[in-house]
């Protein structure tokens, strides 16, 4: 097969006030017709720049400083404006990270699809649009075509973007983190869809992602990037099983494996962080973070990409080091727990009034039930995970416990006190400092104009010791920073001058100021890179080990939950559908919803061909089981009409379903008939 796209020694510079900075450095890549290639690396490594360079779209400050990109042998830098438009619309198409912002908010989906072709007959245009939407498995193309982007769900928006990209039957589809902002169950659907379309149209696909599990399912070949350079390439299976570069091995060690747990196998985050492009190490760019770096060699000799049968690798010690043995863990992890109940919520219900539409609603507001009778218990020193798709009510529950909202009915007992209807401002100071929250996006939760020291000392005054002298408070800030493994000079910096991972550590340090007994963490790592994610989780667990903190971990990342949780609550549409110890919950029999969530976990090992793709949420459930409209194991009418009974297969493992544990166990032991 001939090369469809070939990138030769591509160097891209961005113009900044400090002069040009290299974002991509002599990068080469070859994509053949129908091939699927993955491009992996931390954010800032240059992978998106490569994707945009392929589209010849580097903005006003980006410039190709060397090398060339050939499409079918033609240098795309030489294309005339007219030919460039045909190339972008016709030969290569792109799918973006955030479908919400990639679609024009003031045009309907149909209009945005229709404008790509120059056919003037409106009837045939409408038919083509409908076909395109049907091809990306959108159930009601007519409605979606007439809808504005904000009226569509994230998954539907991404399907529209994909439909748009495919309209002109491109030879190459570039996907830049296409599912990062989507729920796991929706992600599974999009990934499957791209696979189907790729096979049907025989196009080549370039997948840009930091999610190795995802890449594994979709790509035949991988390129790992670090600090603007390719550092390892090879076949996906080989590269994930026997990585040859220490960085690739490090990325893999950051991921929780299916049968690992915090008690047995700690995660191994890569130490340090990506060097900024204007201060790159002189020789091997990874050397300062590398556990295998040999002084005198790795910091003086710049390694080159060495080709071999198994792919290429940029490491001078590639043949001497053995990456298969994991570094020994420093200490036997020991998590002190007792049976004291720290949080007990019973029958928590929360409804929100919806905006008024129409006259009748002036008098009878419609209400959205975000929590519908939730019971949860968390004991001292325990990690309790609450999982579910977005809209399942898990964040609402966290906000109720934290007092950012108050419950409509039900009780939430925190350390012996019912606080269900006490907003955080009215809570006792001791209770406030003992229950702290870590939020999803550290960019939004730190004040951009206050230094780190100022934000942490404020928390010390408000939550810890209000009477400390200025110097004692400074010492306390330093202690908290070292607790979250940040160097002391971070104290004087502004949030803008920190990386995402560092910011999240600062917000954890702030939460720790009052020595809390309970930490509520709402997706604390989901906005972060894999390597940083591992470090943040590791830090939270470290805090828990030392202080016996109770951790309530809200997440949709089931791989991580399986790794760190002691007990898990699975929420669906405001209700807990299954709960129990992590071991029981992650083995059959499970609730059909849990089963679907589990099957959607992209993993880097183990079989990956049994995914259950759920239809998108949306249909309002009847009076019966809330999951019935989407349930692949729906038994009959009883699911729609009767609320399912709570069943208790063993211990404190329970779920609500009309099927008995034996029934479910038998069906789930067999290969799923829905799987592909």
């Amino acid at each position, binding site marked *: 097969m001939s090369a469809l796209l070939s990138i030769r020694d591509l160097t891209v510079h961005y113009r900044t006030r400090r002069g040009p900075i290299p974002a991509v450095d002599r990068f080469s890549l070859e994509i053949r017709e129908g091939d699927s290639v993955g491009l992996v690396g931390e954010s800032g490594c240059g992978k998106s720049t490569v994707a945009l360079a392929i589209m010849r779209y580097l903005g006003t400050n980006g410039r190709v400083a060397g090398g060339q990109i050939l499409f079918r042998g033609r240098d795309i830098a030489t294309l005339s404006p007219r030919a460039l438009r045909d190339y972008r619309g016709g030969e290569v198409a*792109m799918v973006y990270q*955030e479908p919400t912002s*990639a679609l024009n908010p003031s045009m309907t989906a149909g209009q945005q699809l229709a*404008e790509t072709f120059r056919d003037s007959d409106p009837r045939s245009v409408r038919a083509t649009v409908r076909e395109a939407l049907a091809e990306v498995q959108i159930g009601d193309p007519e409605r979606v075509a007439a809808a504005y982007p904000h009226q569509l769900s994230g998954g539907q928006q991404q399907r529209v973007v994909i439909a*748009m990209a495919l309209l002109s039957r491109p030879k190459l589809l570039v996907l830049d983190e296409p599912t990062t902002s989507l729920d796991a169950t929706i992600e599974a659907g999009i990934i499957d869809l791209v696979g189907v379309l790729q096979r049907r149209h025989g196009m080549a696909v370039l997948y840009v992602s930091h999610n190795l599990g995802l890449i594994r399912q979709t790509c035949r070949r991988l390129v790992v990037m670090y600090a603007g350079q390719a550092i390892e390439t090879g076949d996906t299976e080989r590269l994930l099983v026997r990585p040859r570069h220490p960085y690739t091995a490090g990325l893999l060690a950051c991921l929780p494996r299916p049968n690992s747990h915090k008690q047995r196998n700690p995660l191994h985050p890569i130490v340090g962080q990506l060097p900024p492009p204007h201060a790159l190490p002189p020789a091997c760019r990874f050397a300062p973070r590398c556990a295998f770096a040999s002084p005198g060699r790795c910091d003086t000799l710049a390694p080159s990409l060495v080709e071999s049968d198994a792919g290429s690798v940029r490491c001078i010690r590639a043949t001497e080091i053995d990456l298969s043995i994991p570094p020994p863990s420093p200490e036997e992890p020991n998590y002190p727990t007792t049976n004291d109940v720290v949080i007990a919520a019973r029958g928590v219900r929360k409804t929100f009034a919806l905006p008024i539409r*129409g006259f009748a609603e002036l008098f009878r507001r419609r209400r959205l039930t975000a929590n519908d009778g939730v019971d949860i218990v968390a004991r001292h020193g325990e990690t309790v995970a609450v999982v579910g798709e977005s809209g399942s009510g898990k964040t609402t529950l966290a906000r109720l416990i934290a007092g950012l909202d108050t419950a409509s009915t039900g009780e939430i007992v925190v350390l012996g006190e019912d606080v269900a209807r006490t907003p955080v401002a009215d809570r006792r100071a001791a209770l406030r400092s003992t229950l702290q929250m870590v939020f999803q996006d550290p960019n939004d939760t730190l004040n951009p104009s206050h230094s780190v020291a100022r934000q942490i000392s404020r928390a010390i005054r408000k939550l810890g010791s209000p009477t400390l002298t200025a110097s004692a408070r400074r010492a306390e800030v330093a202690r908290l920073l070292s607790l979250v493994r940040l160097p002391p000079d971070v104290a004087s910096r502004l949030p803008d001058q920190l990386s995402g991972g560092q910011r999240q550590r600062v917000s954890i340090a702030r939460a720790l100021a009052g020595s809390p007994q309970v930490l509520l963490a709402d997706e604390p790592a989901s906005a972060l890179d894999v390597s940083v994610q591992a470090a943040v989780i590791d830090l939270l667990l470290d805090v828990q080990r030392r202080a016996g903190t109770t951790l309530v971990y809200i997440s949709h990342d089931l791989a991580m939950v399986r790794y760190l949780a002691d007990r898990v609550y699975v929420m669906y549409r405001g209700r807990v559908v299954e709960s129990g110890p992590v071991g029981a919950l992650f083995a059959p029999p499970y609730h059909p919803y849990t089963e679907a969530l589990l099957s959607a976990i992209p993993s880097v090992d183990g079989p990956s061909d049994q995914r259950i793709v759920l239809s998108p949420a949306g249909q309002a459930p009847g009076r019966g089981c809330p999951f019935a409209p989407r349930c692949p194991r729906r038994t009959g009418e009883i699911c729609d009409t009767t609320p399912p009974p709570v069943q208790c297969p063993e211990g404190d493992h329970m779920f609500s379903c009309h099927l008995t544990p034996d029934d479910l166990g038998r069906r789930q032991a067999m290969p799923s008939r829905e799987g592909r």
Partner: protein
Amino acid sequence: MVLAVLKRLGLLAATMLVVSLVVFLLLEATPSSVAIKVIGPYTTAEQQQLWLEQNGYLRPVGERYVEWLGRFLTGDFGESIRFKAPVAEVLWPRLWNTAILGLTALAVIAPCSILLGVIAGIREGSPADRSISVASIVTTSLPEFASAVFLAGVFVFWLAWLPGTSSMAEGWDWRQLVLPVAVLVLYDLGYVARMTRASMVEVMATAYVRTAVLKGLSRARVITHHALRNALITPFTVLTLHINWLLSGVIVVEAFFAYKGFGALLLEASLNQDIYLIEACTMVAVLVAVATQALADIGYRLLNPRLRGT
């Protein structure tokens, strides 16, 4: 949407009611001061008492307010002291004059500022962008009276092309309108152009404009169909709010060119303590402000599909 419009109109009425109460209480709550303003400070206490009695000012405040409000709603604002004529007869022609001045200015400002803003915003940092941005800052920072003096110096005294006063003493003359309009345009054009530019720059950097470019659309289509549609929301709102300023805030220009408009009337009324005229002018100015605000709000909703349903 209909509900939103009705809600906005209800809010408008409520605002007007509150303002009317404030105006009434400030100016008419103490009857003796009204008498002094109307029949003069050199009258005796008996004369004032008699006047108050004849004009019904000795009734309770509440009753007087209701009656006052009723007269206002029917367009009867009382008698102007200075002009010795019904306030309505003085007010409406003046407002009409100002409307001509303001709308002429707006007709120049709107297309020019949007065009300049879009040209500047399409390519941030281009030579066109820099020139337009600098020129906008310079013209906007020049106060109206300074540019009025400057323009009059050039076109009236040096070149002698245009008349220096715009009182329209010998009937309507478009040449007298040129300088006041020019001053207003000079002052406001840069501001709106800069708002449009900022909005355009922001939109050009969005992911959906990138999507449109990478779909292979022509540059013209990307700008007209994707960028402009979203970038015009801000200047539309700004321009609507400027109607208010053009109708009731052009006091300096009208005074400078002796133009018989609403702003000059407001000034004259205040200087002469012409109480009924002040009341009427205030209510009209507030109505203009609140109405343009409502218009801006409703327009914003119409332009932004995300707000249409709510």
